[in-house]
Protein backbone atom coordinates (compact mmCIF):
# COMPACT_ATOMS: atom_id res chain seq x y z
CA UNK A 1 0.00 0.00 0.00
CA UNK A 2 1.07 3.56 -0.74
CA UNK A 3 1.94 5.78 2.24
CA UNK A 4 -0.59 8.47 3.07
CA UNK A 5 0.07 11.70 1.15
CA UNK A 6 -1.52 14.91 -0.01
CA UNK A 7 -0.25 17.23 -2.74
CA UNK A 8 -1.74 20.70 -2.98
CA UNK A 9 -1.03 22.54 -6.23
CA UNK A 10 -1.73 26.27 -6.12
CA UNK A 11 -1.91 28.96 -8.78
CA UNK A 12 -0.33 27.04 -11.64
CA UNK A 13 0.35 29.41 -14.53
CA UNK A 14 2.00 28.65 -17.81
CA UNK A 15 2.30 30.44 -21.09
CA UNK A 16 3.98 29.63 -24.39
CA UNK A 17 5.41 32.52 -26.41
CA UNK A 18 3.33 35.02 -24.42
CA UNK A 19 0.14 33.02 -24.99
CA UNK A 20 -1.41 31.87 -21.70
CA UNK A 21 -2.14 28.15 -21.52
CA UNK A 22 -2.89 27.68 -17.83
CA UNK A 23 -3.97 30.42 -15.43
CA UNK A 24 -4.19 30.10 -11.64
CA UNK A 25 -5.08 26.44 -11.57
CA UNK A 26 -5.30 24.89 -8.12
CA UNK A 27 -6.33 21.55 -6.78
CA UNK A 28 -5.48 19.02 -4.12
CA UNK A 29 -4.93 15.33 -4.54
CA UNK A 30 -4.41 12.52 -2.05
CA UNK A 31 -4.50 8.75 -1.73
CA UNK A 32 -6.79 6.91 -4.16
CA UNK A 33 -8.17 10.14 -5.62
CA UNK A 34 -9.00 9.93 -9.28
CA UNK A 35 -9.44 12.91 -11.59
CA UNK A 36 -10.47 12.89 -15.22
CA UNK A 37 -9.48 16.01 -17.13
CA UNK A 38 -11.21 16.77 -20.39
CA UNK A 39 -10.69 19.63 -22.78
CA UNK A 40 -10.24 20.55 -26.40
CA UNK A 41 -7.04 19.79 -28.27
CA UNK A 42 -4.44 22.34 -27.24
CA UNK A 43 -6.33 23.27 -24.08
CA UNK A 44 -3.24 22.49 -21.99
CA UNK A 45 -4.09 19.06 -20.55
CA UNK A 46 -0.72 17.53 -21.35
CA UNK A 47 1.12 20.62 -20.09
CA UNK A 48 -0.83 20.44 -16.82
CA UNK A 49 -0.01 16.76 -16.31
CA UNK A 50 3.66 17.38 -17.02
CA UNK A 51 3.76 20.22 -14.52
CA UNK A 52 2.07 18.03 -11.90
CA UNK A 53 4.67 15.33 -12.57
CA UNK A 54 7.61 17.70 -12.14
CA UNK A 55 8.68 17.39 -15.77
CA UNK A 56 7.70 20.76 -17.19
CA UNK A 57 8.42 24.01 -15.42
CA UNK A 58 5.46 26.33 -14.87
CA UNK A 59 5.78 30.10 -14.91
CA UNK A 60 4.29 30.13 -11.45
CA UNK A 61 3.08 27.51 -8.98
CA UNK A 62 3.38 26.66 -5.32
CA UNK A 63 3.13 23.20 -3.88
CA UNK A 64 2.01 21.99 -0.48
CA UNK A 65 3.13 18.49 0.40
CA UNK A 66 1.45 16.79 3.35
CA UNK A 67 0.27 20.03 5.01
CA UNK A 68 3.81 21.44 5.05
CA UNK A 69 4.24 25.13 4.24
CA UNK A 70 3.88 25.92 0.56
CA UNK A 71 7.04 25.90 -1.51
CA UNK A 72 7.78 26.86 -5.07
CA UNK A 73 7.37 24.24 -7.78
CA UNK A 74 11.11 24.41 -8.39
CA UNK A 75 12.01 23.47 -4.83
CA UNK A 76 9.45 20.63 -4.90
CA UNK A 77 10.49 19.36 -8.31
CA UNK A 78 12.72 16.57 -7.01
CA UNK A 79 10.00 15.37 -4.66
CA UNK A 80 7.41 15.47 -7.45
CA UNK A 81 9.69 13.51 -9.79
CA UNK A 82 10.17 10.98 -7.02
CA UNK A 83 6.49 10.61 -6.16
CA UNK A 84 4.68 11.16 -9.43
CA UNK A 85 4.87 9.22 -12.64
CA UNK A 86 3.82 10.52 -16.03
CA UNK A 87 2.80 8.13 -18.81
CA UNK A 88 3.00 9.49 -22.35
CA UNK A 89 0.09 9.06 -24.72
CA UNK A 90 2.28 6.67 -26.68
CA UNK A 91 4.48 5.12 -24.02
CA UNK A 92 8.18 5.05 -24.80
CA UNK A 93 9.56 1.52 -24.81
CA UNK A 94 13.21 1.13 -23.92
CA UNK A 95 15.00 -0.91 -26.56
CA UNK A 96 15.15 -4.60 -25.78
CA UNK A 97 12.63 -7.09 -24.52
CA UNK A 98 9.55 -6.56 -22.38
CA UNK A 99 11.42 -8.23 -19.52
CA UNK A 100 14.32 -5.79 -19.89
CA UNK A 101 11.88 -2.87 -19.62
CA UNK A 102 10.55 -4.26 -16.38
CA UNK A 103 13.96 -5.24 -15.02
CA UNK A 104 15.18 -1.71 -15.70
CA UNK A 105 12.35 -0.31 -13.58
CA UNK A 106 12.79 -2.89 -10.81
CA UNK A 107 16.50 -2.07 -10.63
CA UNK A 108 15.64 1.57 -9.91
CA UNK A 109 13.24 0.76 -7.07
CA UNK A 110 15.33 0.17 -3.96
CA UNK A 111 12.25 -1.02 -2.07
CA UNK A 112 12.08 -4.16 -4.21
CA UNK A 113 14.31 -6.78 -2.61
CA UNK A 114 13.75 -9.80 -4.84
CA UNK A 115 13.76 -8.09 -8.22
CA UNK A 116 13.42 -11.15 -10.52
CA UNK A 117 10.44 -12.38 -8.50
CA UNK A 118 8.85 -8.93 -8.59
CA UNK A 119 9.28 -8.77 -12.37
CA UNK A 120 7.69 -12.21 -12.76
CA UNK A 121 4.81 -11.20 -10.52
CA UNK A 122 4.17 -7.96 -12.42
CA UNK A 123 4.31 -9.75 -15.77
CA UNK A 124 1.63 -12.10 -14.51
CA UNK A 125 -0.41 -9.15 -13.21
CA UNK A 126 -0.25 -7.40 -16.57
CA UNK A 127 -0.68 -10.57 -18.63
CA UNK A 128 2.70 -10.13 -20.27
CA UNK A 129 4.21 -13.58 -19.67
CA UNK A 130 3.90 -14.64 -23.29
CA UNK A 131 5.46 -11.38 -24.46
CA UNK A 132 8.39 -11.44 -22.03
CA UNK A 133 11.09 -12.03 -24.64
CA UNK A 134 9.54 -9.95 -27.39
CA UNK A 135 11.07 -6.66 -28.45
CA UNK A 136 8.99 -4.05 -26.61
CA UNK A 137 9.33 -1.55 -29.45
CA UNK A 138 7.54 -3.89 -31.86
CA UNK A 139 4.48 -4.46 -29.64
CA UNK A 140 1.03 -3.13 -30.48
CA UNK A 141 -0.27 0.06 -28.84
CA UNK A 142 -2.35 -1.88 -26.33
CA UNK A 143 0.52 -4.17 -25.39
CA UNK A 144 2.85 -1.22 -24.95
CA UNK A 145 0.25 0.40 -22.72
CA UNK A 146 0.28 -2.73 -20.54
CA UNK A 147 4.07 -2.68 -20.37
CA UNK A 148 3.92 0.99 -19.37
CA UNK A 149 1.40 0.26 -16.63
CA UNK A 150 3.43 -2.75 -15.48
CA UNK A 151 6.50 -0.50 -15.21
CA UNK A 152 4.38 1.96 -13.24
CA UNK A 153 3.30 -0.85 -10.92
CA UNK A 154 6.94 -1.69 -10.25
CA UNK A 155 7.71 1.98 -9.70
CA UNK A 156 4.78 2.20 -7.28
CA UNK A 157 4.21 5.98 -7.51
CA UNK A 158 1.99 7.98 -5.19
CA UNK A 159 0.59 9.88 -8.14
CA UNK A 160 0.06 8.41 -11.60
CA UNK A 161 -0.58 10.80 -14.47
CA UNK A 162 -1.87 9.35 -17.72
CA UNK A 163 -2.10 11.23 -20.99
CA UNK A 164 -4.89 9.78 -23.15
CA UNK A 165 -4.25 6.22 -21.93
CA UNK A 166 -7.02 4.64 -23.98
CA UNK A 167 -6.42 6.47 -27.26
CA UNK A 168 -6.08 3.98 -30.11
CA UNK A 169 -7.06 1.02 -27.90
CA UNK A 170 -9.77 -1.45 -28.77
CA UNK A 171 -12.51 -2.47 -26.29
CA UNK A 172 -10.44 -5.31 -24.92
CA UNK A 173 -7.43 -3.03 -24.40
CA UNK A 174 -9.58 -0.40 -22.68
CA UNK A 175 -11.07 -2.99 -20.36
CA UNK A 176 -7.65 -4.27 -19.37
CA UNK A 177 -6.40 -0.73 -18.81
CA UNK A 178 -9.37 0.06 -16.56
CA UNK A 179 -8.80 -3.04 -14.46
CA UNK A 180 -5.14 -2.15 -14.05
CA UNK A 181 -5.95 1.43 -13.11
CA UNK A 182 -8.47 0.20 -10.55
CA UNK A 183 -5.68 -1.87 -8.98
CA UNK A 184 -3.58 1.27 -8.63
CA UNK A 185 -6.44 3.10 -6.93
CA UNK A 186 -7.05 0.13 -4.60
CA UNK A 187 -3.45 0.29 -3.43
CA UNK A 188 -3.67 4.01 -2.63
CA UNK A 189 -2.13 5.56 -5.75
CA UNK A 190 -3.85 8.71 -6.94
CA UNK A 191 -4.59 8.98 -10.63
CA UNK A 192 -5.07 11.91 -12.99
CA UNK A 193 -6.16 11.08 -16.51
CA UNK A 194 -6.44 13.41 -19.45
CA UNK A 195 -8.90 12.16 -22.05
CA UNK A 196 -11.32 13.09 -24.77
CA UNK A 197 -13.59 10.22 -23.80
CA UNK A 198 -14.41 10.45 -20.06
CA UNK A 199 -17.26 7.93 -20.25
CA UNK A 200 -14.74 5.11 -20.49
CA UNK A 201 -13.54 5.85 -16.97
CA UNK A 202 -16.94 6.02 -15.25
CA UNK A 203 -16.25 2.92 -13.16
CA UNK A 204 -13.21 4.51 -11.56
CA UNK A 205 -15.51 6.86 -9.60
CA UNK A 206 -13.43 9.73 -10.87
CA UNK A 207 -14.00 13.40 -10.30
CA UNK A 208 -14.56 15.05 -13.67
CA UNK A 209 -12.70 18.27 -14.45
CA UNK A 210 -12.76 20.31 -17.62
CA UNK A 211 -9.95 22.51 -18.86
CA UNK A 212 -11.14 25.48 -20.86
CA UNK A 213 -9.92 29.05 -21.31
CA UNK A 214 -6.80 28.19 -19.26
CA UNK A 215 -8.95 27.32 -16.26
CA UNK A 216 -9.95 24.06 -14.66
CA UNK A 217 -13.67 23.64 -13.96
CA UNK A 218 -15.46 21.08 -11.85
CA UNK A 219 -17.78 19.13 -14.06
CA UNK A 220 -20.58 16.75 -13.19
CA UNK A 221 -19.91 13.36 -14.68
CA UNK A 222 -22.08 12.45 -17.62
CA UNK A 223 -24.46 9.59 -16.93
CA UNK A 224 -22.71 6.32 -17.35
CA UNK A 225 -23.44 4.32 -20.42
CA UNK A 226 -22.60 0.65 -20.49
CA UNK A 227 -19.83 0.08 -18.00
CA UNK A 228 -16.62 -0.76 -19.81
CA UNK A 229 -15.30 -2.89 -16.97
CA UNK A 230 -18.62 -4.70 -16.71
CA UNK A 231 -18.79 -5.31 -20.45
CA UNK A 232 -15.17 -6.43 -20.49
CA UNK A 233 -15.70 -8.87 -17.64
CA UNK A 234 -18.91 -10.10 -19.21
CA UNK A 235 -17.12 -10.71 -22.50
CA UNK A 236 -14.55 -12.72 -20.56
CA UNK A 237 -17.25 -14.74 -18.86
CA UNK A 238 -16.39 -13.44 -15.37
Amino acid sequence: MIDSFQFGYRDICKQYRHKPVLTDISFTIGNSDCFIITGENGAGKTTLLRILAGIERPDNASITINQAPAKSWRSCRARLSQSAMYLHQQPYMLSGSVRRNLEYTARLNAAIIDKPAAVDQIMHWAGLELLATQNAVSLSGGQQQRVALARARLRDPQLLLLDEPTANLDTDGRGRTLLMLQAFLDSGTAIVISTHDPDIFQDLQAQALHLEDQTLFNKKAAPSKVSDIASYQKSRGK
Partner: protein
Amino acid sequence: MDVLIASTLEAFRLLFSGNAEIWEIIGISFRVSTLAILLAIPPALIIAFVLAYGNFFGRRFLISLFNTFLSIPAVVIGLTLFIVLSRQGPMGDLGLLFTQTAMMMGQFILCLPILIAMAHTSFQAADRRAWETARTLGANRFYAFVTVLYEIRFGLLAAMLAAYGRIISEVGASMMLGGNIAHYTRNIPTAIALETSKGNFAEGIALGVVLLFLAFVLNGLLHHVQGKGSIHP
Protein backbone atom coordinates in the same frame (compact mmCIF):
# COMPACT_ATOMS: atom_id res chain seq x y z
CA MET B 1 51.41 -1.58 -63.70
CA ASP B 2 54.21 -4.07 -63.00
CA VAL B 3 55.56 -1.74 -60.33
CA LEU B 4 52.17 -1.63 -58.61
CA ILE B 5 51.76 -5.41 -58.63
CA ALA B 6 55.34 -6.01 -57.47
CA SER B 7 55.01 -3.37 -54.74
CA THR B 8 51.70 -4.83 -53.54
CA LEU B 9 53.13 -8.34 -53.36
CA GLU B 10 56.16 -7.02 -51.49
CA ALA B 11 53.79 -5.09 -49.18
CA PHE B 12 51.95 -8.28 -48.19
CA ARG B 13 55.27 -10.07 -47.71
CA LEU B 14 56.40 -7.28 -45.36
CA LEU B 15 53.15 -7.46 -43.40
CA PHE B 16 52.95 -11.21 -43.04
CA SER B 17 56.67 -11.75 -42.45
CA GLY B 18 56.25 -9.76 -39.23
CA ASN B 19 58.52 -6.88 -40.23
CA ALA B 20 59.30 -5.26 -36.87
CA GLU B 21 59.52 -1.71 -38.18
CA ILE B 22 56.17 -1.89 -39.96
CA TRP B 23 54.41 -3.33 -36.93
CA GLU B 24 56.03 -0.77 -34.64
CA ILE B 25 54.62 2.02 -36.83
CA ILE B 26 51.19 0.36 -36.76
CA GLY B 27 51.41 0.05 -32.97
CA ILE B 28 52.25 3.73 -32.52
CA SER B 29 49.35 4.73 -34.77
CA PHE B 30 46.83 2.65 -32.88
CA ARG B 31 48.12 3.65 -29.44
CA VAL B 32 48.06 7.40 -30.14
CA SER B 33 44.70 7.43 -31.95
CA THR B 34 42.98 5.10 -29.49
CA LEU B 35 44.09 7.14 -26.50
CA ALA B 36 43.09 10.37 -28.24
CA ILE B 37 39.57 9.15 -28.98
CA LEU B 38 39.13 7.58 -25.54
CA LEU B 39 40.00 10.93 -23.98
CA ALA B 40 37.69 12.80 -26.36
CA ILE B 41 34.59 10.61 -25.99
CA PRO B 42 33.47 11.59 -22.44
CA PRO B 43 33.64 15.39 -22.87
CA ALA B 44 32.19 15.12 -26.39
CA LEU B 45 29.17 13.15 -25.17
CA ILE B 46 28.52 15.56 -22.32
CA ILE B 47 28.85 18.63 -24.56
CA ALA B 48 26.62 17.04 -27.24
CA PHE B 49 24.00 16.14 -24.63
CA VAL B 50 23.97 19.64 -23.14
CA LEU B 51 23.74 21.19 -26.61
CA ALA B 52 20.86 18.88 -27.55
CA TYR B 53 18.79 18.96 -24.36
CA GLY B 54 19.91 22.18 -22.72
CA ASN B 55 18.19 25.51 -23.05
CA PHE B 56 20.64 28.33 -22.52
CA PHE B 57 21.86 31.51 -24.13
CA GLY B 58 24.45 30.91 -26.86
CA ARG B 59 23.44 27.31 -27.54
CA ARG B 60 22.86 27.86 -31.25
CA PHE B 61 26.13 29.75 -31.56
CA LEU B 62 28.02 26.84 -29.95
CA ILE B 63 26.35 24.32 -32.27
CA SER B 64 27.40 26.41 -35.29
CA LEU B 65 30.90 26.73 -33.86
CA PHE B 66 31.39 22.99 -33.44
CA ASN B 67 29.97 22.37 -36.91
CA THR B 68 32.49 24.86 -38.27
CA PHE B 69 35.32 23.03 -36.51
CA LEU B 70 34.38 19.94 -38.53
CA SER B 71 35.95 21.42 -41.61
CA ILE B 72 39.15 22.78 -40.07
CA PRO B 73 42.12 21.21 -41.91
CA ALA B 74 44.39 19.01 -39.80
CA VAL B 75 47.40 21.13 -40.76
CA VAL B 76 45.77 24.22 -39.28
CA ILE B 77 45.30 22.40 -35.98
CA GLY B 78 48.87 21.15 -36.29
CA LEU B 79 50.17 24.65 -36.94
CA THR B 80 48.22 26.17 -34.04
CA LEU B 81 49.34 23.51 -31.59
CA PHE B 82 52.88 23.73 -32.96
CA ILE B 83 52.96 27.44 -32.04
CA VAL B 84 51.46 26.74 -28.62
CA LEU B 85 53.90 23.90 -27.86
CA SER B 86 57.03 25.39 -29.44
CA ARG B 87 59.74 26.83 -27.18
CA GLN B 88 58.41 30.37 -27.50
CA GLY B 89 54.78 29.30 -27.13
CA PRO B 90 52.68 29.45 -23.94
CA MET B 91 53.17 25.71 -23.30
CA GLY B 92 56.73 25.52 -24.56
CA ASP B 93 58.20 24.77 -21.13
CA LEU B 94 56.38 21.43 -21.06
CA GLY B 95 58.63 20.13 -23.83
CA LEU B 96 55.80 18.29 -25.55
CA LEU B 97 56.60 19.15 -29.15
CA PHE B 98 57.65 16.13 -31.26
CA THR B 99 56.24 13.66 -28.75
CA GLN B 100 53.36 11.18 -28.90
CA THR B 101 51.53 13.37 -26.37
CA ALA B 102 51.60 16.28 -28.83
CA MET B 103 50.25 14.00 -31.56
CA MET B 104 47.53 12.85 -29.20
CA MET B 105 46.60 16.46 -28.41
CA GLY B 106 46.29 17.21 -32.11
CA GLN B 107 44.14 14.14 -32.76
CA PHE B 108 42.03 14.92 -29.68
CA ILE B 109 41.24 18.37 -31.07
CA LEU B 110 40.57 16.87 -34.50
CA CYS B 111 38.10 14.24 -33.37
CA LEU B 112 36.31 16.28 -30.70
CA PRO B 113 34.11 18.32 -33.10
CA ILE B 114 33.28 15.21 -35.14
CA LEU B 115 32.16 13.38 -32.04
CA ILE B 116 30.22 16.39 -30.74
CA ALA B 117 28.47 17.12 -34.05
CA MET B 118 27.50 13.52 -34.76
CA ALA B 119 26.52 12.73 -31.15
CA HIS B 120 24.51 15.95 -31.04
CA THR B 121 22.61 14.83 -34.15
CA SER B 122 21.95 11.45 -32.52
CA PHE B 123 20.70 13.07 -29.31
CA GLN B 124 18.42 15.37 -31.27
CA ALA B 125 17.10 12.52 -33.38
CA ALA B 126 16.46 10.47 -30.26
CA ASP B 127 12.99 10.51 -28.83
CA ARG B 128 12.91 12.99 -25.96
CA ARG B 129 10.50 10.59 -24.26
CA ALA B 130 13.53 8.32 -23.66
CA TRP B 131 14.96 10.84 -21.19
CA GLU B 132 11.57 11.59 -19.64
CA THR B 133 10.68 7.91 -19.33
CA ALA B 134 13.98 7.11 -17.62
CA ARG B 135 13.48 10.01 -15.19
CA THR B 136 9.87 9.14 -14.50
CA LEU B 137 10.83 5.51 -13.86
CA GLY B 138 13.06 6.76 -11.06
CA ALA B 139 16.46 7.16 -12.73
CA ASN B 140 18.66 9.97 -11.45
CA ARG B 141 20.10 12.38 -14.03
CA PHE B 142 23.30 10.39 -14.54
CA TYR B 143 21.50 7.07 -14.96
CA ALA B 144 18.94 8.67 -17.29
CA PHE B 145 21.88 10.06 -19.32
CA VAL B 146 23.38 6.56 -19.52
CA THR B 147 19.97 5.20 -20.55
CA VAL B 148 19.68 7.70 -23.40
CA LEU B 149 23.26 6.87 -24.48
CA TYR B 150 22.25 3.23 -24.68
CA GLU B 151 19.12 4.09 -26.66
CA ILE B 152 21.19 5.94 -29.28
CA ARG B 153 24.19 3.61 -29.15
CA PHE B 154 24.26 2.90 -32.88
CA GLY B 155 24.43 6.60 -33.76
CA LEU B 156 27.17 7.08 -31.18
CA LEU B 157 29.10 4.08 -32.46
CA ALA B 158 28.91 5.52 -35.97
CA ALA B 159 30.24 8.84 -34.62
CA MET B 160 33.14 7.06 -32.91
CA LEU B 161 34.01 5.08 -36.01
CA ALA B 162 33.92 8.20 -38.19
CA ALA B 163 36.10 10.10 -35.71
CA TYR B 164 38.56 7.21 -35.38
CA GLY B 165 38.80 6.86 -39.14
CA ARG B 166 39.53 10.58 -39.40
CA ILE B 167 42.34 10.73 -36.84
CA ILE B 168 44.13 7.47 -37.62
CA SER B 169 44.51 8.49 -41.24
CA GLU B 170 45.36 12.18 -40.82
CA VAL B 171 48.88 13.20 -41.72
CA GLY B 172 49.11 17.00 -41.32
CA ALA B 173 48.89 17.38 -37.55
CA SER B 174 50.87 14.21 -36.81
CA MET B 175 53.69 15.30 -39.09
CA MET B 176 53.92 18.79 -37.57
CA LEU B 177 53.47 17.83 -33.94
CA GLY B 178 55.23 14.45 -33.91
CA GLY B 179 58.00 15.24 -36.35
CA ASN B 180 57.87 11.73 -37.91
CA ILE B 181 60.69 10.46 -35.64
CA ALA B 182 61.49 6.81 -36.32
CA HIS B 183 60.57 4.36 -33.52
CA TYR B 184 58.84 7.17 -31.58
CA THR B 185 56.37 9.39 -33.44
CA ARG B 186 56.28 7.78 -36.87
CA ASN B 187 52.75 6.55 -37.45
CA ILE B 188 51.01 5.03 -40.46
CA PRO B 189 50.15 8.20 -42.43
CA THR B 190 53.46 9.96 -41.81
CA ALA B 191 55.34 6.77 -42.69
CA ILE B 192 53.34 6.40 -45.93
CA ALA B 193 54.19 10.01 -46.85
CA LEU B 194 57.87 9.45 -46.07
CA GLU B 195 58.26 6.10 -47.81
CA THR B 196 56.42 7.33 -50.90
CA SER B 197 58.71 10.36 -51.13
CA LYS B 198 61.69 7.94 -50.94
CA GLY B 199 60.20 5.69 -53.63
CA ASN B 200 59.64 2.77 -51.22
CA PHE B 201 56.15 2.02 -52.47
CA ALA B 202 56.00 -1.45 -50.89
CA GLU B 203 56.15 -0.12 -47.34
CA GLY B 204 53.65 2.62 -48.20
CA ILE B 205 51.23 0.11 -49.70
CA ALA B 206 51.66 -2.26 -46.76
CA LEU B 207 50.67 0.48 -44.34
CA GLY B 208 47.85 1.57 -46.65
CA VAL B 209 46.54 -1.98 -46.61
CA VAL B 210 46.44 -1.84 -42.82
CA LEU B 211 44.35 1.34 -42.96
CA LEU B 212 41.99 -0.21 -45.51
CA PHE B 213 41.69 -3.37 -43.44
CA LEU B 214 40.95 -1.27 -40.36
CA ALA B 215 38.19 0.62 -42.22
CA PHE B 216 36.74 -2.69 -43.38
CA VAL B 217 36.77 -4.19 -39.86
CA LEU B 218 35.25 -1.08 -38.25
CA ASN B 219 32.45 -0.88 -40.81
CA GLY B 220 31.81 -4.62 -40.59
CA LEU B 221 31.61 -4.32 -36.83
CA LEU B 222 29.14 -1.45 -37.06
CA HIS B 223 27.02 -3.35 -39.56
CA HIS B 224 27.05 -6.45 -37.35
CA VAL B 225 26.03 -4.54 -34.21
CA GLN B 226 23.29 -2.66 -36.05
CA GLY B 227 21.92 -5.88 -37.47
CA LYS B 228 22.00 -7.65 -34.15
CA GLY B 229 20.49 -4.76 -32.21
CA SER B 230 20.46 -6.60 -28.93
CA ILE B 231 23.56 -5.56 -27.02
CA HIS B 232 22.97 -4.70 -23.40
CA PRO B 233 24.75 -2.17 -21.20
